[in-house]
C-alpha cells in the first residue's frame, strides 16, 4: 500500500487517538505541575454598637475571578508529586526514622492515601491474575469433558459474570454479602455474631473485592483456554497414553505446555485490566477500607466541592508510570523480536 493511501485510510482513527489519548496525556502532564488557587482572603470589619472587630473572610468574587482568569491554577512545579497525598517523601522519611520495625513502617505507610491505594492495586492485581488463570484452566478442562449437548448452555452461563457491567456485577454481589443480604445473614448465623459485617474489617473487604475480581475475570481465561484445548493434537495425547502416562501426567506434560502461550496472553490482558480496578470499589462502597489508584483519581475529580485537577493529574501520571513498568517485559520482548526481524 502506498504511503499516501495508507495515510488517508488511517487518518480518522489516528486523529481520534492523537486528540483523545495522546493529547490528554500531555494535558495531564501540564496539569500536574499546577495547583488550585488559594482562596482570596479579605479583612472585613464587623462593627457592633460597642466595638469593631476585624475578621478574615473569603472574597468569593475575587476567588471566582481568579479561577476564571487562570483556570489551571498556580504553578507548583513538582510540589504536588511530593505532597502528603502523593509520594509524601517527608512523611515517608519521618515514618522510616520513627518506626522500629518494618511492620510498623508498613502500617505507617498505609495511612498515606497514595501508598494505601498502591498497596491495594498491587495486591489485587497480583492475587487475582494467578487465581483467574488456574480457575479458568480448571473450568475449561471440566467443560471439555462434558457431553456435547450441554456445552453450549454451560458456556452461556459461564460468560455472564464477565459480560455484565462491572459496577452492576459488584452491586449484585454486594447486595448478597451485605449484612441483610442472603450470604451476609448466613455468615452472621454461622458465626453467631449479629455485628459481623464484611465491610467492617480491612482484610475481609480486601478478600471480598478479590473474590469479586476472580468471579468477574475467570470466564475470560476459561474461554481462551477452552478454545486452546480444541487445538491440542490428539496424536500427542495418545502417544503419551501409550507410553503409560496417567491422566494427570497427560494434563501436566502435554496439555499445560500447549497452553503456555495462552497463559502469557491472559496474564498480559489481566495485568492491564486488574491494574485499573475501580468499579468494584464504588459498587461495594469499600472506599473506607480499600482504595485503588483509579479510585483516588476519580475521587479527586468527583469527590469534593472543588475538583482537584492537579492532584488527579499527578496520580494519573504515577499510574501511567506503573502501567509502563508493568508492560515493560512485553514491550522489551516485542522490541527484540522486531529487531531480529529487521536484521
Amino acid at each position, binding site marked *: 500500500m502506498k504511503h499516501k493511501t495508507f495515510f488517508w*485510510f488511517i487518518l480518522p482513527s489516528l486523529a481520534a487517538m492523537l486528540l483523545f489519548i495522546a493529547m490528554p496525556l500531555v494535558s495531564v502532564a501540564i496539569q500536574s505541575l499546577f495547583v488550585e488557587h488559594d482562596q482570596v482572603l479579605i479583612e472585613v470589619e464587623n462593627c457592633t454598637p460597642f466595638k469593631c472587630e476585624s475578621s478574615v473572610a473569603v472574597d468569593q468574587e475575587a476567588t471566582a475571578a481568579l479561577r476564571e482568569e487562570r483556570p489551571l491554577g498556580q504553578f507548583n512545579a513538582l510540589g504536588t508529586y511530593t505532597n502528603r497525598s502523593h509520594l509524601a517523601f517527608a512523611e515517608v522519611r519521618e515514618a522510616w526514622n520513627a518506626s522500629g520495625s518494618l511492620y510498623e513502617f508498613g502500617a505507617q505507610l498505609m495511612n498515606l492515601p497514595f501508598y494505601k491505594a498502591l498497596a491495594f492495586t498491587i495486591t489485587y492485581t497480583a492475587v487475582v491474575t494467578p487465581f483467574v488463570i488456574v480457575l479458568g484452566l480448571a473450568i475449561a478442562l471440566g467443560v471439555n469433558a462434558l457431553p456435547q449437548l450441554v456445552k453450549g448452555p454451560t458456556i452461556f452461563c459461564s460468560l455472564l459474570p464477565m459480560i455484565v457491567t462491572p459496577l452492576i456485577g459488584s452491586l449484585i454481589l454486594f447486595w448478597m454479602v451485605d449484612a441483610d443480604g442472603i450470604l451476609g445473614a448466613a455468615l452472621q448465623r454461622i458465626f453467631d455474631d449479629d455485628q459481623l459485617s464484611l465491610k467492617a474489617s480491612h482484610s475481609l473487604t480486601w478478600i471480598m473485592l478479590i473474590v469479586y475480581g476472580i468471579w468477574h475475570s475467570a470466564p475470560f481465561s476459561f474461554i481462551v483456554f477452552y478454545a486452546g484445548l480444541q487445538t491440542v493434537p490428539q496424536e500427542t495425547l495418545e502417544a503419551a497414553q501409550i507410553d503409560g502416562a496417567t491422566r494427570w501426567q497427560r494434563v501436566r506434560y502435554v496439555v499445560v505446555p500447549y497452553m503456555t502461550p495462552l497463559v502469557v496472553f491472559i496474564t498480559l490482558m489481566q495485568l492491564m485490566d486488574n491494574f485499573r480496578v475501580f468499579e468494584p470499589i464504588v459498587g461495594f462502597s469499600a472506599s473506607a477500607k480499600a482504595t485503588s489508584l483509579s479510585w483516588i483519581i476519580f475521587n479527586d475529580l468527583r469527590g469534593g466541592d472543588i475538583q482537584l485537577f492537579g492532584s488527579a493529574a499527578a496520580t494519573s501520571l504515577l499510574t501511567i508510570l506503573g502501567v509502563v513498568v508493568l508492560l515493560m517485559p512485553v514491550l522489551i520482548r516485542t522490541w527484540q523480536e522486531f529487531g531480529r526481524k529487521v536484521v
Partner: protein
Amino acid sequence: MASVAQRRSPGLIFFSTAFIVFWLMIATGPFIWTVWGSFKVQGDFFSKTDWRYALYGVRTITETGDAFTGNGYFGAWIQQEFWRNAFNTVIVVTFTVIISLTMGTLGGYALARSGFRYAFWLLMAALVFRAMPHITLVSGYLLPFFEWNLWGHLPTTIIVLVAINQPFTLWMLHSFFLNIPKDMDESALVDGCTRLQAFRHVIIPVMWPGVITTGLFSFLLAYNDFAVTSVLLSQENQTMVPKIASFLGTVRQQGQVMFAVAAVVSAMVPLFFLVLFFQRQIVSGLTTGAVKG
C-alpha cells in the same frame, strides 16, 4: 468415539461434573437471585428474619397482596425517570459503535495491508494506549472540556468513547483483515480499481463477520463504561450505569433500595440477550488475540 482407554473413571467424571455444577452456581446464582428478588419488597430481599422470605415473598404478600410486585420497576423507571437514562444509553452506544467501526475498518484495513515499519509502530502504540486506565485519560479531558464548554454533552462522551475504543478496534480488525487473502483486493487493483474502490467492492462484502464481532466488543465497552460517563456527563445527560451509581445513595436514604435493584436488573437484560444471540461471536472474538499468540 472415545476408546476404552480414554474413558474416564466414574470418580473423575463425578468430580469434574460436580466442579462444573458448582462453578455454574457461582456464575449464575447471583443473577438468578437478584432477578427473582427484584420482584419482592425490600423486607423480603434484604430479610433480617429468614432468607426464605425472599423465595416465597412473605412480606411482599402482606404489603402488596401478591407474591410478586413491580413496585421497584415502577419506582425506578417512572418515579426516578430511569427511562431518560436508558434513552441516553441507547444514543451513546449506537453512535459509539457505528463511528468506531467506521474508523476502525478503514484503519485496520490499512494496517493489515501496509508492510511498512510505521504500521508496526502504530500497532505498538495502540497496545500501550489500550493499557491506559481510562480514568487517567478522563482527568486530562476535564479541564479543557470545562474551558471550551464541551463538558456534559452526549456527543463529547461519544467521541471520547470512540477514541478510547480505537486501539482495541484497530487490533481486532487488523488481525481479522490479515485473514482475508491479499490476492482478493490486489487482483482488483490490477484490474484498475483504486484502493478505495477495491475496499468498497471486494473487502466490504466479505468483512461482516469480523465487523460484527468487533462491534459487539465496542458495544460492551460503551455500555459497561462507568469511568468516562460518570465524570463527563452532566446530571440530566447521564446514561444508565452512572445513574445507578448516583442514585444508590439517595434511594438508600429514602428506604427505596428496591428501585436500585430494579434498575440494575433492567440494565442487565440487554446484556443477557446479547450473550444469548451472539455467544459464538463473543467466544471467537475473545480468542482471536490469543490464537495469534
